[in-house]
């Protein structure tokens, strides 16, 4: 199971069109803050006093800029960012639906149409799952931290405080939240694969799936996290190498940033594909109403899904 999940995830990283789509959606949505940010930073264009910002971030110069417009510009940007983030939850739910539609039923629609059809079809169900997960994960994270809270005397930090102490203190809560996030995606895959309508049942099914396949889901998570760390390290190295005031360095940094975001989208696709492979063993595939393709799909999983289902004695139409 674990090997199959990892192989599915790695195979899905080649689905560039889906990764492009996720990147594009994310980039376009995040661009909502660009006009306000551009207007704010453009005030630096006239004053050589801001030149140190070309080399690196200087808090003092930043504060001078902020005070120069009485913080109103920053307040507008912060408000915009918060609004984008709030809407980003809903958009993320939509993107998850679209991605799963493309992964589970690659032959049903053209890529773009399938993505948007899936996003719309599963949006409301996925949103409910997300809210349930948010509530449950918050409670569980506090619960996981409580023993530490009660055991440690007041005023004392683990391991002498600092980064190690803080990391150790946060670890239980972080692990709990990671588990619930994995369970949420398992539930989403179950809903999309089985067209489930009862969200409470689907949510508990996701939890059960994450527990039952803890090894496979965990291995998948470690692999995705590992690749993400490598990408982050590569990006930071590149950004450090490109630090400087030259226009070419600034533009190359922008390219590196977007490349990083694109690869991060590909990782999201890989993670979902891996989970699809895991969940498939639990849930019968939904009956498709579309005309089967006349030629073998380029997608990795259709044939395998059929053969898996047949092996397990499930009806395949």
């Amino acid at each position, binding site marked *: 199971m674990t090997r199959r999940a990892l192989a599915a995830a790695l195979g899905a990283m080649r689905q560039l069109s889906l990764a492009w789509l996720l990147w594009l959606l994310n*980039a376009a*949505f*995040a*661009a*909502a*803050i*660009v006009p306000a*940010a551009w207007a704010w*930073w*453009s005030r*630096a*264009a006239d*004053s*050589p*006093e*801001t*030149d140190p*910002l*070309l080399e690196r*971030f*200087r*808090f*003092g110069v930043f*504060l*001078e*800029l902020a*005070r120069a417009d*009485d913080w109103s510009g920053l307040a507008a*940007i912060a408000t915009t*960012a918060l609004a*984008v*983030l709030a809407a*980003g939850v809903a*958009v*993320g739910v939509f*993107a*998850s639906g679209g991605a799963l539609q493309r992964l589970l039923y690659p032959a049903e629609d053209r890529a773009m149409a399938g993505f948007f059809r899936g996003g719309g079809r599963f949006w409301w169900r996925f949103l409910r799952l997300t809210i349930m997960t948010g509530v449950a994960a918050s409670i569980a994270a506090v619960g996981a*931290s409580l023993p*530490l*809270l009660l055991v*440690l005397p*007041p*005023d004392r*930090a683990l391991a*002498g*405080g*600092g*980064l190690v*102490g803080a990391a150790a*203190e*946060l670890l239980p809560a972080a692990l709990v939240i990671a588990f619930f*996030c994995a369970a949420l995606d398992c539930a989403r895959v179950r809903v999309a694969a089985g067209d489930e309508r009862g969200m409470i049942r689907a949510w508990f099914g996701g939890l059960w799936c994450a527990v039952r396949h803890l090894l496979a889901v965990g291995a998948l998570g470690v692999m995705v996290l590992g690749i993400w760390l490598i990408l982050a390290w590569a990006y930071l190295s590149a950004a450090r190498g490109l630090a400087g005031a030259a226009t070419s360095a*600034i*533009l190359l*940094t*922008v390219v590196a*940033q*977007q490349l990083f*975001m694109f690869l991060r989208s590909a990782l*999201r696709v890989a993670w979902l594909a891996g989970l699809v492979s895991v969940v498939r063993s639990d849930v019968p595939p939904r009956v498709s109403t579309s005309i089967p393709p006349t030629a073998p799909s380029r997608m990795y999983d259709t044939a395998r899904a059929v053969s898996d289902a047949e092996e397990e004695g499930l009806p395949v139409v």
Partner: protein
Amino acid sequence: MLSLMRALATAAALLLVTAIQDRGIAPGAPVEQPAARTAPVVPALPALPAAGPPSVADYAISAALDVNAKEVRGRERIAWRNPSGDAVPDLWFHLYLNAFKSPGTTFNRESGGQLRGVSNASLRAGRIDVTSMRLEDGTDLRPRLTFERPDDGNPDDETVARVLLPRPVGPGETVTIDVEFTSVLPQVYARTGYAGDFFLIGQWFPKVAVYEPAGTRGRSAGGWNAHQFHALSEFYADFGHYRVDITVPQRFVVGATGRRVSERINTDATRTFTYDQAGVHDFAWTADPRFVEVRERFSGTADVSAAEYAAAATLLGRRPEDLTLSDVEITLLMQPENRPQIARHIAAAKAAIKHFGLWYGPYPYGTLTIVDPPLAGEGAGGMEYPTFITGGTASALNGPPFDRVLIPEITVIHEFGHQYWYGLVASNEFEEAWLDEGINSYSTGKLLDVVYPPTESFATLFGLTFSETEFARFDNTRAMNADRVRQPSWTFLEDRVYAYSVYYKPELVLGTLERMIGEQTMARVMRAYAERWRFRHPNSDDFYAVASEVSGRDLTTFFKQTIEDTGVLDYELAEIASAGTGASRTSTVLVRRLGEIQVPVEIEIRFEGGAVERRTWDGRDRWTRLTFTRPEAVESARIDPDHTLRLDVSWINNARRAEPDRRVAVKWTSRWWFWMQNLLSLVGA
């Protein structure tokens, strides 16, 4: 985050316990006397120390801490010498613990029951009961004791008391009185009180106010200067010699003002420590069984190199041997959880003793005690008393990534700086708080820039640096200049304006002055002021006079503009224009003064091809237009290119390019877009 949650949980538990314990003193209600119980024995008074200059009020005090009732029972003998040529008919006292007595006190009315963000809601109140007051000959003065409200007439305030003497104290005469008192300690939120077994005991005994002879601080006639305890003020008192016996249960670790001269174990499982210090104007002490006691010695020879003495001598125009520093016994009382920060605290204390000693004269006392309050007692943090200061830190700063956030160092250095600006140069913090907080903030900033790289003198976090100057400039806006720097502490618009006006604006004013008259001249100004007014009570005019005299320039106008007015300093590079070509090209640079403060400024003009020219403008008019006839066009121009004018409210508008350069905008807008994408990926997944 969990540390924060734990702190919140602890605070909630403390509040709950406190609410149960709270005696609930209502405004105007009669104050209960403490219930009869087995009280700790207050040992006999130590002998009154011999008076020596500078001594106006000498104290012999015996105090016993009741750790269960959170009270101090004490008796004291005060010898007050009339420093004036007047016959003084009365004595005025500070009873500052009464500031915490009821919601109606002036302190509570002004503060809304909070200080530095720590609230006293549901915390136990505090007060001081004077149970006996007699002259040396036994005359009972208690019936003659009345409460005075010189600042606001608030009938609920009992922080200043006056006793009419049977006969006036003649010029140079000394009157001796014996007082018995009980100090009911508040739960600590404003400098003094208790938190569990931690005790920080300040403003805890009846203390004589300052009688200012004619001529002191500009007075035309002698008189008492006694102010009520205000929310936005610290203290003012007269010099004296203190000998204090402190009795506590044996398990407690104790620290106090002055040198510990003896220690004895009593038969009732208590210990009595005796402390002695001359030439100070207050006495504070602390007790906590959890303290980790660290002793370290600052050596005037081993900790200061010959090169450092030589550099200071050159700066001040003195001989190195005239600057020799004395040894100081440093006692650090640390909370156990903050043990990893012991070396940081000691290093900061040694740096402060060394540099302030070299700059402003040797630290004259043999001891320095630094107290690290626990988290629950954070309201006691960041405070100064003679030879005794409290730090301010948290265990989160023990290691990476916060170990380069210099809050503990800055706190120790700043509070030690008060040994000069409050301790030795004893200005009146009620009326002119900038003379200690402001001058001390300037001194702190200078020291930080010497000890740490100037760009990192406040914090380095995740590779980002923040300097002390940038921190000081944070509130430097037109709106924050709502009050004058020199005005009584309780008359400021709000806390933030007070903090800016009294701490940061004077730091920026003096930083600007230093760059205007030169570092060496400024160093000599500060040295002369510190020496001339050591063990005395100066006012702002005295500082202005020393600065003008030493610099050889009349600086009165500068101080009137910056310290005694609400105007701001703001110059703007308004426009760069060019006409013609080749040798007939004429370029103009328009410079405007937007603020009210007028100081000379330097303007740097950069031309295409790399040529640079500097001009000076006296800044008296509202604007000036500089004209240049040369073949190269002006590329950019900058007012105050060396950042001399620390007080300028905006450095951004000090410079302008002929053509805009959008690289900063591209770089940082794209980065913010990138961060937004990452955040969206996080919440959207």
